[in-house]
């Protein structure tokens, strides 16, 4: 009988020690994913050369890169973010607007922010030909949220 208690004790302790909720492992606040397409052929992905990206009055996230898609964070303290996207020293400015919604994730991650009613309030068109919003709710990073044609 006493041996059984010992076994139950050991079992329960191992059972409880398996907890892993102190480290945040869930996906949280998503980034905005932009994919670049050819303006002449809207199904063809077209790489951008000499790409430099930064948010208004912030440091660059990408510097002089050649890419066909980028992942950029949105400002969680405002309902807008202004980005400057430069390709071969030609600058274009895009202003995104959105509503923020905080969703509970877990003890260790706390809350994540998702962006709803995502819109482009304004943009310049120096090298950008067209922008289309694919998904106006940004709640994951599985697919591109906007396409930029150039």
């Amino acid at each position: 009988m006493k041996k059984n208690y010992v076994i139950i004790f050991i079992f329960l302790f191992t059972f409880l020690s398996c907890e892993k909720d102190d480290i945040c492992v869930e996906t949280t606040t998503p980034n905005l994913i932009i994919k670049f397409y050819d303006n002449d052929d809207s199904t063809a992905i077209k790489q951008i050369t000499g790409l430099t990206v930064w948010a208004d009055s912030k440091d660059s996230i990408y510097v002089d890169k050649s890419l066909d898609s980028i992942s950029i964070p949105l400002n969680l303290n405002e309902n807008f973010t202004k980005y400057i996207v430069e390709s071969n020293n030609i600058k274009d400015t895009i202003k995104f607007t959105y509503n923020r919604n905080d969703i509970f994730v877990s003890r260790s991650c706390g809350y994540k922010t998702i962006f709803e009613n995502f819109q482009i309030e304004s943009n310049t068109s120096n090298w950008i030909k067209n922008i289309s919003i694919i998904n106006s709710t940004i709640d994951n990073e599985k697919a591109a949220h906007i396409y930029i044609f150039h």
Partner: protein
Amino acid sequence: MRKQHIFIYFISILFTISVNSQEKIDTVKTKESYGIRIGLDISKPITSFLDNNTNGYEFVGDIRVFKNYYAAVELGFSNKTTIEDYLNFTTKGSYFKAGFNYNAYKNWKGMNNEIYIGLRYGLSFFNQTLNSYTPHVKGTYFIPNTLEPNTEFKDLTAQWIEIVFGMKVETFKNLYLGVSVSFNNMLNTKEPENFKNLYVPGFNRVFLNNAGVGFNYTLSYLIPIFKKEEK
């Protein structure tokens, strides 16, 4: 010569066994107290004093129903602020636990100690207040501000079961010191909207797999009602 030694050895073993088995069973009868035992958890006021974020008390009581079985209850109140990396919340509420203990300890005559295993049903009514949180983001490009919504989630409930292991020692006549640990498993909870019951009064921290652990250190007094003769 050697065989003879072995033979004597076996004979002697048989002899001692047979002697032991002939020992008379002790038939001295003693009286054991039955009654209501009430007390309080003295670890909770101590932790309340040491930790500003924790405040609580717990009363305990049990009645000896049969020789080794005790019906047991615990009643308590808890007000605790939990601080996590991205969250800060306060849980406030009361709880009630009821069940039984089985004493597995064979006492010597005249002693009333217990080493027990028990089962409890737990019920809690509480409120959660989300004091503040910081949205979780990867990287440090935009650093989010900490928000203080102070949202109060009212009228939450939780029900659970506990397996209790503990012991009680009679230190002075009718005065008992007890210590126990419990392993809790949540049955159901009324969860707040867009938040979670991460702490429940009486259950304590709610782990990912709905498990929890409890601990108490009690001082209790037995009010004897009648005495029963035990063999």
